[in-house]
C-alpha cells in the first residue's frame, strides 16, 4: 500500500475526514502540480509561439516540453502526434468533425461499444445520423461484464469506417483487449478511436503495442488541471485531415481569398491555448511515474477489493462487477430499495464523495436494466479509512431507509 501520499494533496489536508471516492470523475491535484502552474504564472507567463522575448520563449518551451513529455508517456513516435485540446470530449469531437466528416458516407458503418462514455458515443451516433450511416453498438457479456469480443468481430465489416472503443469503462472499469480490437478493425481497413480517459491514470500505456489511429485523454483525471486534454493521432491522418477550428496560431498564410494552414499539431490548435494546463499535465505525469503506475494500481485495487468484500457482506448491496477482476479502482453498486441518488446524498452529508447517476453512460446503464448506479472510485491517495467510511455510510443509509 502507498503510504503518505495523502500529504501531497492539499485538498485532503484541508478537509480532514473527507473520503474522496470520485476520482473517476476528476482527481485531486498534488501540490507539485499546483506549484508548477503557479510558478509559471508568477515567473514565466506569456503567450506562446510568436513572442521573440524571453518570457514568451520560455512559455513556448514549457508548452512544447509538455508535448514531448506526454509523447514519451504514451510512447508516441513524435510530439507532433499530439494535439492539445480541452478534454477527451473535444479530442473525440475533433476526430468525428474532421476525418469522420470526410470519410463516412451513406451506407457506411461505425462500430461503438455499449460501454462507451457519452463522449465516445454521441459524436459517432450524430455523425451516423447526419450521414445516413449505421451505428452498430457492440454489447458486453452479461456474466463477465466484459466487452463481447465475438460480437465485435462479427460487427466489423468492410463497410466499417471507424471502431470506437473505450480502453477502460468509467462505470465497470472493464478494459477491453485493445490489441485485438485494433487487429479486427485493421483487417477491414477501419480506423480505431480509443478513449483512454480512464485508462491512462492507472496503467502504463505503450501505443506502439497496438498502434491506434486516434486516442484521447483528459489531464484532470490524472492529477492535472481541468480544461486540458490530448488527442493522439497517426501522422498520416493528422497531415491529411482538415482543421477543426480556424483562427490564430494555426495558419500559414491568410489572404482575402484563401487560407493555408500550419503543419500538425498547430493546425488543430486555433487560438491561445491553456498553456498552464500543459504544464500541469507534464508535472502530473512526472509525479505519477515517480510513484509508479504499477504501485498505484496495486494500491487502489486492494482498497476497492476490500470495499467490495465489506459491502457484499452487508447483504443489501448489489455490486456490478466481474467477481474475478477489479479495474482502475472502480466499484459500481446499488443499495437495495434505495435510489442511488439518495444513497449519494446521505454519503455526501457524511463527507463521503461518491457519484450516483448514469455516469454519462446511459446506453450501458440501460443495457444493464438499471436507471442509475453508485460509483465509488479509489485512487492513489485513498486509504483503508476511506473504505471504513464508505461502509459506515452505507450502514447509515440502510438505517435511514429502515432496511
Amino acid at each position, binding site marked *: 500500500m502507498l503510504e503518505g501520499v495523502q500529504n501531497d494533496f492539499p485538498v485532503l489536508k484541508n478537509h480532514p475526514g473527507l473520503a474522496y471516492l470520485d476520482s473517476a470523475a476528476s482527481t485531486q491535484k498534488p501540490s507539485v502540480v499546483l506549484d508548477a502552474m503557479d510558478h509559471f504564472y508568477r515567473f514565466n507567463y506569456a503567450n506562446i509561439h510568436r513572442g521573440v522575448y524571453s518570457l514568451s520563449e520560455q512559455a513556448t518551451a514549457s508548452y512544447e516540453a509538455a508535448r514531448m513529455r506526454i509523447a514519451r508517456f504514451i510512447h508516441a513516435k513524435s510530439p507532433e502526434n499530439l494535439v492539445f485540446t480541452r478534454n477527451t470530449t473535444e479530442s473525440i469531437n475533433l476526430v468525428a468533425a474532421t476525418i469522420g466528416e470526410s470519410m463516412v458516407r451513406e451506407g457506411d458503418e461505425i462500430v461503438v461499444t455499449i460501454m462507451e462514455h457519452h463522449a465516445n458515443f454521441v459524436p459517432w451516433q450524430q455523425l451516423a445520423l447526419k450521414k445516413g450511416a449505421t451505428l452498430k453498438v457492440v454489447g458486453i457479456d452479461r456474466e463477465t461484464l466484459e466487452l463481447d469480443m465475438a460480437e465485435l468481430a462479427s460487427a466489423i465489416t468492410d463497410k466499417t469506417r471507424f471502431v470506437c472503443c473505450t480502453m477502460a469503462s468509467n462505470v465497470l472499469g472493464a478494459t477491453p483487449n485493445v490489441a485485438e480490437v485494433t487487429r479486427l478493425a485493421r483487417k477491414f481497413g477501419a480506423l480505431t478511436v480509443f478513449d483512454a480517459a480512464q485508462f491512462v491514470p492507472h496503467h502504463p500505456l505503450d501505443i506502439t503495442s497496438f498502434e491506434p489511429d486516434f486516442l484521447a485523454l483528459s489531464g484532470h483525471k490524472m492529477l492535472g488541471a481541468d480544461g486540458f486534454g490530448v488527442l493522439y493521432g497517426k501522422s498520416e491522418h493528422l497531415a491529411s485531415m482538415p482543421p477543426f477550428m480556424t483562427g490564430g496560431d494555426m495558419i500559414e498564410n491568410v489572404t482575402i481569398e484563401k487560407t493555408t494552414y500550419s503543419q500538425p499539431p498547430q493546425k488543430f490548435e486555433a487560438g491561445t491555448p491553456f498553456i498552464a494546463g500543459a504544464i500541469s499535465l507534464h508535472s502530473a505525469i512526472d509525479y505519477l511515474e515517480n510513484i509508479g503506475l504499477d504501485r498505484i494500481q496495486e494500491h487502489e485495487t486492494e482498497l476497492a477489493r476490500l470495499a467490495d468484500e465489506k459491502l457484499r457482506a452487508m447483504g443489501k448491496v448489489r455490486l456490478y462487477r466481474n467477481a474475478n477482476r477489479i479495474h482502475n479502482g472502480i466499484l459500481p453498486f446499488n443499495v437495495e430499495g434505495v435510489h442511488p441518488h439518495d444513497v449519494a446524498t446521505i454519503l455526501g452529508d457524511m463527507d463521503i464523495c461518491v457519484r450516483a447517476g448514469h455516469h454519462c453512460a446511459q446506453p450501458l446503464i440501460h443495457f444493464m436494466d438499471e436507471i442509475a448506479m453508485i460509483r465509488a472510485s479509489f485512487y492513489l491517495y485513498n486509504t483503508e479509512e476511506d473504505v471504513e467510511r464508505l461502509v459506515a455510510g452505507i450502514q447509515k443509509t440502510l438505517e*435511514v431507509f429502515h432496511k
Partner: protein
Amino acid sequence: MTTQLDNMYRDLILDHYEHPRNCHELNHTDRTEEGFNPLCGDHVNIQFEQDGRTITDISVCTKGCAICTASGSIMSDILKGLSVDETKSMVENVKAFLTGDRDIDPADLPSSLQALSGVRKFPIRIKCALLPWTTAELALNKK
C-alpha cells in the same frame, strides 16, 4: 449525519417513497406529460382527467429517487379536485417555497408539503422535488 439530512428523509417522505399514491389507469386522459431529471435519471409520467376546468383524477408514476417520488405522490393527493387555475397557482407557490425565490408562508400550503421543506437545505436535490410540479405545469399549459 446532520439533522438537516434527518429533516429531508422524514418518515412521511419515506412512506410516500415506499408507497407512492395515485399511480393508476385513468378513465380517460385529457392531458399527459413526461418529465426527466438527467441528474439522477428521475422519470415522471403525469396524466390528468378533467371535467371542464376541474381536475377530476390524476395519475403520477415516478421512477426515481425518494425525494422525487415522494414529491410526486404528495402532489397527486393535493391536486385532485382543484381547478386548472388553482393548480397553476399551487404549482407556482410550491416552486417558490422549494427554491426560496419568494417568501411563502408554509401555513398557506397543504401541510403534507411541509415534509418536503428539508430539501431546501440540499440545493442540488431541489430539482428532484420540483420535477413532478414542473411537469404538471407543462401538462396544464399544453393547448
